[in-house]
């Protein structure tokens, strides 16, 4: 199938050190990709470069074979939540309508199509009943859904979600995975960054293992092998029986530089060791949370 999202030799440096080194990816139309990697691996940097928030030193990003900047709303990006002033006097509907500003420009009044797109996005995330509420009055999970709804209201071709599973409970996480499932019908290409290797391995058809450079990319079974995980995580990966335990509590290196990556990376990620279970040594604990 024709690749609709192409990343070619993307290289981003902060103060001389590479945050991303020659990363190339081709994502088929409508595919859903999990981007996995340790702290400072450049997951957020990759997304920021893809939406033009950072200018890469080398390489380029193409959507439908063209630069994203030449098109209206080709890529919607949902950053991590900390970057917003929640006391700002806007309602949920106001925020979601901002997703239409790319089409509306500076002055044109919202048309019926814009109001429909907003209503549809609010419905898809089950927050239509909150439309008139100020965003400051929402719970954390509701706030995340507002920004997802805004991204959907952009009617993008590519959706980038930065660490959407961080800091949400199991119910919210399942709801989000359900939404991703529903998006398949709309043929929206989705990239999700996460350090939850288990979810990446079981719920996405494609996974990319990133640590400044692209360690592996493809079907999860082929990506999450002992060698690849070892190469991406180095000494942070511990292989216990049939499971991989990744220690992320004490990052040695913050390579993303932009200062947005501090809150996200604390905790322990656990993932099934594909190499181990393929070898017939499954102890029935693969992929479960470590004690």
């Amino acid at each position: 199938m024709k690749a609709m999202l192409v990343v070619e030799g993307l290289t981003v440096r902060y103060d001389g050190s590479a945050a991303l080194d020659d990363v190339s990816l081709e994502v088929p139309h409508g595919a859903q990709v999990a981007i996995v990697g340790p702290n400072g691996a450049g997951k957020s940097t990759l997304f920021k470069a893809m939406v033009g928030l950072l200018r890469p030193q080398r390489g380029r990003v193409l959507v439908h074979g063209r630069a994203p900047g030449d098109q209206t709303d080709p890529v919607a990006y949902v950053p991590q939540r900390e970057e917003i002033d929640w006391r700002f006097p806007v309602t949920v509907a106001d925020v979601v309508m901002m997703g239409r500003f790319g089409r509306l420009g500076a002055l044109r009044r919202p048309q019926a199509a814009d109001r429909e797109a907003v209503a549809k996005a609010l419905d898809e995330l089950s927050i239509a009943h909150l439309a008139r509420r100020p965003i400051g009055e929402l719970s954390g999970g509701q706030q995340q859904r507002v920004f997802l709804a805004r991204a959907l209201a952009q009617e993008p071709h590519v959706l980038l979600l930065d660490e959407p599973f961080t800091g949400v409970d199991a119910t919210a996480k399942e709801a989000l995975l359900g939404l991703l499932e529903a998006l398949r019908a709309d043929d929206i290409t989705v990239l999700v960054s996460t350090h939850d290797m288990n979810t990446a391995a079981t719920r996405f058809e494609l996974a990319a293992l990133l640590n400044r450079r692209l360690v592996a990319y493809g079907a999860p079974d082929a990506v999450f092998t002992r060698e690849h995980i070892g190469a991406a995580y180095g000494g942070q990966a511990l292989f216990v029986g049939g499971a991989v335990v990744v220690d992320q509590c004490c990052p040695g290196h913050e390579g993303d530089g932009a200062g947005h990556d501090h809150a996200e990376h604390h905790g322990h990620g656990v993932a099934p060791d594909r190499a181990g279970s393929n070898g017939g040594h499954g102890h029935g604990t693969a992929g479960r949370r470590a004690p």
Partner: protein
Amino acid sequence: MIDWLTEPFALAFMQRALVAAVIVGLVCSVLGCYVVLRSMAFLGDALAHAVLPGIALAYLAGVDLLLGALVTALLVALGIGFLTRHGTVREDTAIGILFAAALSLGVLLISSAGSYATDLTHILFGDVLGVSTTDLWLTGGLAAGVLLAVALLYRELLLASFDPVLAHTLGRRPRLVLLALLLLLALTIVVSLQTVGVGLVAALLVTPGATASLLTRRLPAMMAVAAAIGVASSVVGLYLSYYLDVASGAAIVLTATAAFVVAFFFAPRRGLVWRRLGETRAARA
């Protein structure tokens, strides 16, 4: 009662004062909403004081004082934008440096002029009663320009203030928009100098907006309520000034402050009294 209300404005200079005060109350309050939302109160105050050397130079050179103020305010706004652009200096540090330097330069120039002319003290504390017809046209023109820009840039200012990341991904230029906001702020301060003076502009920029934020939950409503409070404060302040024979700029600012205090305690939902009542009710239930 009617006489009591109309008496002050039988005089031509009081009529001009009323028009000037209403214009200033309006434009300061509307733009002030962004000052409040973006935590730019310090910047507003600094910018106001920073126009002093320009005014002193204009006075020494014998040109219109407002013109001098306008040029310096724009220069300082651009200077703050330039210093913080490269991230080498924190914004509040850059503001502090430029603010103190410009204020000192102003004092230096004024003291070297020999006599503290009344014109200059009026710039410090405002002299709305001395507004000439020419001043009024200049004030009105600048204010109309600022309000028009705020209306045309509404979506851009909202995006750049609320979510610059989204603004970027939509292909907008939030940094440029924020520079435009700085320039509008500089213009607004110059517009307000004659009414409330250098020392009190910041209050008029911040107080009505802060009051409105306690009473509203959406930006357009906040701007409308702030404008109403700003205009009402100007009118009420002028009456107080006339009947109590006190300085008009100070009377206007204190009226706005009184409105804020009332809202702080009694605003529905967000006022202190309301929240205490809610707590008591919750405790009883």
